[in-house]
């Protein structure tokens, strides 16, 4: 509904924008100060959505290139976000599409298999841009593959929504390009939020266990830096880096236990994160584990209530019993209802809620199309103009796209896992058999906004 009324460029005049804010604000749409917002009321009836059977629209469409790892051992990445992009596309298509260049167009999704390798990512992106003429790019897991995609995006001037790679370097002076927008919290945001959170907690002794490569070290360094800033009295009692795909965590656990910390910090992703918590708990290490990626409900359910109790999660999107917006509640409930009808592979616990990364990417994808809607054209230069400095009231929280470095900034959330969680969604327990996030604290944007890289400060005045 809200989309319908905005055929004209939003920010043509200040008056018009103020008028729109006042007109649509009460309808649950745009918050004061935001350029646009997600409208839960506009969401289509999703009862006919099936990620296994996405209906591609025909004719003249908006083409979105979905770039992910779809073959080989890491193909799970490509599978995980397919319901995300198709969900948003299905919703918008059911509403009739988006008015661009004077024509209502529906969203078509074209897959590109990055194989998790930069060379393949580059080739696939090139193919999508040149042969399929995609209008937008969406991706991807792995900062190095995201870099390859960003390069091609720049070359062929196709806007690229990077909602999955978090390396700070990806958007620094050297690697920045105008066509890439990052909506995922970067290394600094994440660790600022966690550090700020710990400054409000009594614990002072921390152990760090991260993966021994660039990402693990970058995360740990940022954590140490900001912990020192927000909580100078905190002490790092042990700091270790284990090799990727470690088999046996026991030696590290013995070491950590000897150091006797209050909190164990890890940035491990799968499968290391899963193995870390599982083996730690089986060895009787019951420390609170502050983490980023050990959020897979499958894993948590397998570790069980006792094991997951007092884990600490940090994300830019979090459900549990956070005070939630209407939009968030509606999305959570709607998705969960639909999930019950999905078939393999989407019937697994992994997809039970659109939480953490799933929620965040859904929200970011909606943002992308909201920007397109408001731009009213697929001209990349105009899209960039609208998106830069855009303030969007997303499904959860307000997100601002910094014009200088195309990094989205927003509030972060840190939550502690407890059990049982209060019933949030009528008739559907949020977590069953494991401790879900609870006691969620919002970390205001000002405490978790990274500085704009020096060289990019003057880019936009």
């Amino acid at each position, binding site marked *: 509904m809200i989309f319908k009324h905005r055929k004209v460029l939003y920010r043509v005049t200040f008056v018009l924008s103020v008028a729109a804010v006042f007109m649509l604000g009460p309808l649950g749409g745009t918050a004061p100060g935001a350029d646009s917002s997600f409208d839960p009321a506009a969401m289509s009836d999703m009862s006919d959505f099936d990620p296994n059977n996405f209906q591609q629209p025909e004719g003249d469409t908006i083409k979105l290139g979905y770039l992910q790892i*779809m*073959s*080989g051992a890491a*193909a799970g990445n*490509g599978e995980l976000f397919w319901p995300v992009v198709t969900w948003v596309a299905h919703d918008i298509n059911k509403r009739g599409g988006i008015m661009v260049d004077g024509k209502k167009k529906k969203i078509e999704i074209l*897959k590109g*298999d990055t*194989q*998790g*390798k*930069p*060379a*393949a990512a*580059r*080739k*696939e992106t*090139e*193919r999508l841009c*040149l*042969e399929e003429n995609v209008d937008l790019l969406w991706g991807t897991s*792995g*900062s*190095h593959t995201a*870099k*390859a995609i960003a*390069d091609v995006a720049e070359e062929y001037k196709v806007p690229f929504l990077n909602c999955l790679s978090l*390396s700070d*370097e990806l958007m620094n002076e*050297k*690697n920045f390009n105008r066509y890439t927008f990052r909506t995922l919290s970067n290394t600094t945001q994440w660790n600022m939020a966690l550090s700020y959170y710990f400054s409000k907690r009594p614990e002072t002794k921390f152990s760090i266990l991260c993966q*021994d*490569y*660039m*990402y693990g*070290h970058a995360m740990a360094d940022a954590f140490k830096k900001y912990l020192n800033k927000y909580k100078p009295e905190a002490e790092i009692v042990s700091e270790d880096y284990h*090799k*990727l795909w470690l088999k046996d965590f026991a030696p590290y656990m013995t070491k950590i236990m000897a150091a006797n910390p209050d909190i164990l910090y890890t940035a491990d992703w799968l499968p290391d994160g899963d193995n870390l918590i599982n083996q730690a708990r089986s060895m009787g290490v019951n420390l609170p584990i502050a983490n980023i990626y050990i959020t897979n409900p499958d894993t948590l359910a397998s570790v069980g209530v006792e094991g997951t109790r007092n884990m600490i999660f940090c994300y830019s999107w979090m459900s549990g019993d956070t005070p939630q917006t209407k939009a968030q509640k509606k999305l959570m409930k709607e998705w969960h209802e639909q999930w019950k009808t999905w078939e393999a592979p989407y019937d697994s616990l992994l997809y039970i809620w659109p939480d953490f990364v799933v929620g965040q990417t859904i929200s970011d994808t909606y943002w992308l199309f909201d920007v397109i809607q408001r731009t009213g054209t697929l001209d990349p230069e105009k899209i960039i103009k609208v998106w830069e400095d855009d303030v969007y009231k997303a499904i959860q929280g307000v997100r601002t796209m910094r014009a200088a470095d195309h990094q989205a900034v927003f509030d972060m959330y840190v939550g502690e896992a407890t059990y049982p969680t209060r019933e949030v969604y009528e008739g559907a327990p949020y977590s069953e058999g494991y401790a879900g996030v609870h006691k969620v604290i919002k970390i205001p944007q000002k405490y978790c906004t990274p500085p704009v890289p020096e060289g990019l400060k003057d880019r936009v005045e």
Partner: protein
Amino acid sequence: MIARITPPAWTRWVLPGIAAAILLGYPLVFGTVYTNIFIHFAIFAVFAASLNMLVSYTGLLSFGHALFFGGGAYATALALENIPGMGLFPAIFTGGLAGAAFALIVSPLLNRVRDTAFALLTLALGQLAYMACIKLRDITHGEDGVGGFPIPDLSIPGVVSVSMVPAQNFYYLAIVILGICLLLMWFLTKTPFGSIMIGIRDNPQRVDFLGFNIPLTKCLIFTLSGFFAGIAGSVYALFNNLVTPDGVFHIMTSFTPIMMVYVGGIGTFAGPIAGSGLMTIIEEIATRYTTQLVLFNGILLVLVVMFFRTGFVGLYLLLKQKLFEKESSR
């Protein structure tokens, strides 16, 4: 005796001429995507041919050829990143030298083993390079790799300067460099040194008794093979403007040329080139229409080993022979 009519000399140039014309016109006809696919094919053809020097001509199966390929790729990328004003050809040559240097360094160790032990030792060395590349974050930028380095123009001072960023321009550079590499490797097999290589493959003991220093000879073979693999890696680095451990040092980077050599036809010079072409086509079809690239590769390998041991080139020769026989029987 009946005087044979010798065809005029120019006819010898018909086929190479047609081939050259196709190569020259290719990017104009097929556009950027297929141009880049061709460059990818050419890079791996040279990489596989450099491995073939060991597999088919010296009888050694290397499972760690990514060591040389990656060494070349990283050398070029790091040189361009850190040395201002580095020229195009010096950068590529640096890659080749790095590949050769890596090979020279490991050759004393490799010289001590043969056969399966050789395969496993090279596997371990390749894996060590992968780990070291991730571990030496300060130099290699870890898993993010070295990217965004300046691609120098192809310039002859005062005469011409061409940007190598457009796919078409890069295509011609790549084709020339990779073509020269293939020619050199082919020529190598025709030299006395090439005969000695084949001798080592078939009967090392006899070669020793003929007065050839096998360890030293193998050292040179490794070095040459490393050099060409390094050049391939170097062109790969320029082509992608990004080298990462997963891209160049990963174990699959070592397996891919083995598959190419085998699928194309082991024991022949054309094998790896045909293999690279075939596997590039399969990858293209598989990723375009399915997400089953790995399955396709697996099935291809099993089929080739079980039913077409001579590979693509062998199959071609067989067909040619069959056709020829039919003709002569008529």
